[in-house]
């Protein structure tokens, strides 16, 4: 057994828990998860069947944690994990799975496949079987503070521009405020308007907030590549900042996996319950709306539809809020088929967008999103994840479609009634 397989086996053994064992015990190879996965539906290649992506983990479970498996392993009938297994499955576990969890909603026996992919990546990363570009992003996140290599001065420059453009002040390192806003590098580099929108809405709603110069990056490459220690380190930076600034709530930005990383995995990664709350920006905005602190001046008449980012909706539980918020500025909102908890992934989540090797398949499987969009033929598409937005724009371009892709927060900010201060 090579060092890599030894390491992978050892990590798998750490990762396998009761749910994993229950899931593997229950699989009847019905293949329904394939029909739920855009990597299968758009390629027609059965190797992309979600449960198949877990074969190496399943092998270790069977050999290490079942009586039958142990006996068959002793008898030499069940062969141990090989380097070839790891090499063959690397593409399946990283390039063709966004951990969107749609298969987990469909599996008739209730297997949470995405949950297990997350665990399997731990073993793959530890044994050196993670995609190179994802490793690079992780290295930048740890060493520079951002997977895209964005440093504080770059953020400060953007803030300066925004303050000049909008005339709004963007607070930094203010202690004792209500909200600490986190950002994603993509927002800083590609969609700085998001920061301006936040400033505008919070001013309108009259709530106090701040950014942190020590922790502004919300994304977490550790989660995507599957290294809990690194993920924990990245989460710890945010926890430290939030505690230092004594905020009540940390706001996760328009990013999918950042929410999962901070909201759901965060406390488990650092090993303690947070003293503050973690909310997605949509949750905060909807609370403000419900409290009557958000008033819009007009409603768009263009046909709008909403793309649910997987980690926010299906894996995050933020489903009603975006719809309520969109209705504040639109009277022509339509739902795509399968919208909500069963929405189809854009194809770029779970580290796939940072993985250059996956570029081709990522664009290929966008066909699924395209079909979904075509079904309602909207004038614009709203979403709440920068990663989704960038990939959808890429995809639309690739498929020669003209469709504006909007940020929900930014669009809401544009339609705020400036005349009232709530």
């Amino acid at each position, binding site marked *: 057994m090579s060092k890599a397989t030894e390491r992978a086996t050892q990590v798998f*053994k*750490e990762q396998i828990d009761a749910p994993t064992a229950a899931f593997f015990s229950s699989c009847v190879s019905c293949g329904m998860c394939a029909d739920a996965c855009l990597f299968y539906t758009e390629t027609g290649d059965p190797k992309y069947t979600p449960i198949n992506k877990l074969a190496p983990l399943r092998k270790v479970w069977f050999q290490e944690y079942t009586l039958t498996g142990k006996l068959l392993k002793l008898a030499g009938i069940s062969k141990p994990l090989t380097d070839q297994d790891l090499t063959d499955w690397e593409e399946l576990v990283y390039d063709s799975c966004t951990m969107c969890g749609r298969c987990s909603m469909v599996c008739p026996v209730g297997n949470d496949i995405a949950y297990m992919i997350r665990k399997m990546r731990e073993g793959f990363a530890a044994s050196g079987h*993670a995609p190179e570009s994802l490793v690079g992003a992780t290295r930048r996140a740890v060493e520079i503070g951002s997977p895209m290599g964005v440093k504080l001065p770059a953020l400060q420059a953007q803030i300066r521009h925004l303050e000049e453009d909008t005339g709004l002040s963007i607070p930094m390192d203010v202690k004792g405020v209500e909200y600490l806003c986190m950002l994603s590098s993509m927002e800083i580099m590609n969609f700085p308007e998001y920061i301006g929108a936040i400033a505008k809405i919070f001013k309108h709603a009259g709530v106090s907030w701040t950014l942190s110069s020590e922790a502004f990056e919300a994304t977490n490459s550790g989660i995507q590549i599957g290294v809990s220690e690194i993920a924990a380190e990245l989460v710890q930076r945010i926890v430290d900042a939030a505690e230092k600034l004594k905020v009540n709530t940390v706001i996760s930005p328009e990013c999918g996996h950042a929410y999962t990383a901070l909201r759901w995995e965060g406390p488990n990664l650092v090993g303690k319950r947070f003293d503050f709350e973690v909310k997605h920006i949509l949750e905060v905005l909807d609370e403000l709306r419900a409290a009557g602190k958000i008033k819009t001046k007009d409603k768009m008449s263009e046909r709008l539809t909403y793309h649910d980012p997987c980690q926010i909706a299906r894996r995050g539980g933020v489903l009603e809020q975006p719809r309520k918020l969109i209705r504040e500025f639109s009277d022509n909102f339509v739902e795509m088929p399968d919208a909500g908890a069963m929405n189809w992934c854009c194809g770029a989540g779970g580290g796939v967008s940072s993985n250059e090797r996956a570029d081709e398949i990522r664009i290929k499987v966008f066909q699924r999103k395209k079909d979904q969009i075509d079904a309602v033929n909207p004038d614009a598409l709203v979403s709440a994840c920068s990663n989704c937005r960038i990939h959808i724009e890429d995809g639309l371009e690739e498929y020669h479609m003209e469709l504006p892709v909007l940020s929900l927060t930014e669009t809401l900010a544009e339609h705020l009634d400036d005349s009232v201060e709530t």
Partner: protein
Amino acid sequence: MEPVKSPMDLNPAVKSTGAQGETVGEALRRQGISRRGFLKFCATTASLMALPPTMIPRIAEALENARRPSVIWLSFQECTGCTESLTRSHAPTIEGLIFDAISLDYHHTLQAAAGDAAEAAREEAMKENYGNYVLVVDGSIPLGNPGYSTIAGVSNEDMLKEAAAGAAAIIAVGSCSAFGGLPNADPNPTGAVSVQEIITDKPVVNVPGCPPIPVVITGVLAHFLTFGGLPELDQLGRPVAFYGQSIHDRCYRRPFYDKGLFAETFDDEGARKGWCLYKLGCKGPTTYNACAVTKWNDGTSFPIEAGHPCLGCSEPKFWDAGGFYEALSTPTTDIARTAVYAVAAGAAAGVAAGALNKANKKRALSEHQTTTLDDLSPGT
């Protein structure tokens, strides 16, 4: 006081010397039976052989010319129930007539002769008719110790072998001789076996039942008389004409089984309405016999009609085939207790296996190595 009638008087068939040259037709006519009577006899014979009425003329022709065979009846470990079944009737029945048509040369329960005279009669008949007589056996044969059952100092096994050697046909009457029966039931203290376990070089017609239906016994005799040979037999050596269909398949209560209407106890509404007795342990589905059609006591009824489940008495091992009142589909053992033990053993084994897994996982966790950035790209 009226003198006790000898069995010979009760049963004219038992004669130490028979008119062996006589045909069946002659024998019947000698008894003053007209040809109309003979035709009636043939019709009922066809009926008891389970042959279609179209066979009546053939039967009439064959019987008219058939020679009366010599029959030697040996009784081993038995209860005389089989003989009772056959001779129970007070008036001449059609079975009785068939019986009359044979020459019963030895039957130690029925014959008047006893002791040396009886044995001499047997030996004489065997000698005279060597190769032609019919051997009827009731009762099982003890192999555990020959002394368990002897006749005139001869062990059952020896007597059977000797009698079988010169027999034209062997008929094992009753479940004891056919399958071992009650003596063979667990723990089988005498080492009882069936006829066909000893006589392996000749076909044995098994007429099982505890007791067998009288018309089935005579039906086989009638077949031998009529056709001179043995009827078609099933895998267990039973005549297909009588044992070809299960009690269940010919049971008049079968429609209730199909409708799922069962008597749950012997005195419930279902029992009163004549519903299916499956749940009360009826062995009808696994029992092949003609009871449901021929019935008992001159066609009056049969156990299921009287409200009692079939015991399966014409099948091998019926004494040991689970309780008489246990439904056929249920396990024969105390499965609930076994299951409880299995749960306990499973829990113990499961906890042990789980503890091993836990230790395995704990070891993996203790060997945990922090994954560093350098681990991620081992090539660089």
